[in-house]
């Protein structure tokens, strides 16, 4: 089955690229290709330039369902990705303390995932991703398992994190509001097989964007018009499991 076809994309360093498209169009597959978790049957993914100093894992994911180890505490989950890269002792301790502080998790150092709300779990996943100092963050619908209010809160947190220290992000989402809030560049894919429909550039700095802002709303409406028909078709599809 062809999932993605005839797709050529350039991701900009230090900016957030949002990828939107109807259900099943291959967004997650594309992201897995970016991160080396999937092998393309044709074509290739190239990375250029050097990873920043202290980068343990250049291409780092944040998953929709958090992917926390339930048997490890918050700190343990962050520690997991440091252990294998030989970060030990005081250094490890410091890195963990730093990323937990940046994601407002300092008080939850020893909590188990089951005790946390969804928003907190995703913060842990973000802290874990930050801990390896990635060159590119690959975020696969990081907010869609959360309720609308928590989503708002986390969007603010992401903007704050990016503002403090800009990272290269590829952010897959269904949510046009998220794309309009977080994207420097919005890539719109068509239905399966996913092809490039449009690429929208947004010059407005992230910190100047607010929910309910008129131009962002207009952009959203434009994107929605672009996609509505395809979203409907995707919705009506019968899967032949």
């Amino acid at each position, binding site marked *: 089955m062809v999932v993605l076809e005839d797709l050529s994309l350039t991701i900009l360093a230090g900016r957030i690229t949002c990828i939107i498209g109807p259900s099943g169009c291959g967004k997650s597959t594309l992201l897995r290709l970016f*991160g080396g*978790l999937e092998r393309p049957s044709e074509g290739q*993914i190239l990375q250029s330039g050097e990873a920043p100093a202290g980068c343990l894992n250049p291409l780092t994911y944040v998953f929709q369902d958090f992917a926390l180890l339930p048997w490890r505490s918050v700190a343990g989950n962050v520690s997991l990705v440091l252990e294998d890269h030989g970060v030990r002792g005081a250094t490890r301790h410091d890195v963990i303390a730093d990323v937990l502080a940046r994601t407002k998790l300092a008080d939850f150092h020893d909590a188990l995932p089951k005790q946390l709300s969804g928003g907190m779990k995703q913060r842990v996943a973000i802290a874990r991703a930050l801990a390896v100092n990635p060159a590119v963050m690959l975020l696969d619908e990081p907010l869609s398992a959360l309720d609308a209010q928590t989503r708002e809160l986390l969007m603010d947190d992401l903007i704050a994190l990016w503002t403090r220290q800009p990272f290269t992000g590829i952010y897959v989402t269904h949510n046009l509001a998220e794309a309009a809030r977080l994207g420097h560049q919005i890539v719109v894919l068509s239905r399966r097989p996913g092809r490039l429909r449009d690429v929208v550039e947004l010059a407005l700095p992230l910190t100047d964007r607010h929910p309910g802002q008129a131009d962002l709303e207009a952009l959203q409406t434009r994107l929605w018009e672009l996609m509505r028909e395809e979203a409907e078709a995707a919705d009506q599809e019968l899967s032949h499991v």
Partner: protein
Amino acid sequence: MSEAARPVQFRGGGFKPGMRRGTGLAVFILLIAMIEWGTRAGWISNLTLPRPSDVGLTFVDLWQTGLLWDHLLPSLGRLIVGTLLGVTAGIGVGVLIGLFTYIRAGLVPLVAAMFPIPKIALLPLFVIWFGIGEGSKYALIALGTFTPTVVAAYGAVDNVDRTLIRMGQSFGLSWISIVRKIVLPGALPGILSGMRVSVAIGIILLVAAEMLGAEFGIGAYILQAGSLYDLERLFAGVVILSALGVLTSWAIGMIERRVLRWRV
């Protein structure tokens, strides 16, 4: 792009072992060939293992003399009747335990206490209770399959999605409708997978059951071969039971695929 563009390295995949058709068969054939060689060459003593080709000949013999059916049919009858009794009763009791607090509180400890009782220990009692005829054989197999079925059945009822039950209540469905249309179909996958284990136990218990005055039956055949230390026949019997087990497990798999087509 500018300088040094390297392709991203693949690091996914794995951790998803599939089945290679034929490997299993190859392992079987290899194993049998090894034993054949060993027994012929003498580095496996004929006291340790029989020669596979001799076991094969025993089979041919069983087949040609018609003794195979003389032994297989009574055993199948016992297995079917006994398992049917045990499984039916087990599902009934298990569902009741899954539905009613007092039945659960009263019976779960009883079932837990019955589980580790070795059925062969009760053989002498079974003769008194059910006679030496088919009755005691049915009863032994039924008892052996009963307890695991109960456990599987009430586990399955417990695992039925509670939101579906609340949905039924919210639409004003009667209690019996909820049980019939939501709880029972929802418990079916668990019950069927429990049946796999129950039937395997039923097959294992055939030998114990046929300790009780059975002249014909695969279990009796094995016991007789064992008491004569006739390894060829012992293994022939064991192979039949093993095949029976694989076959019934496959049959339940087929039923599952048919009845549970709705599963994701």
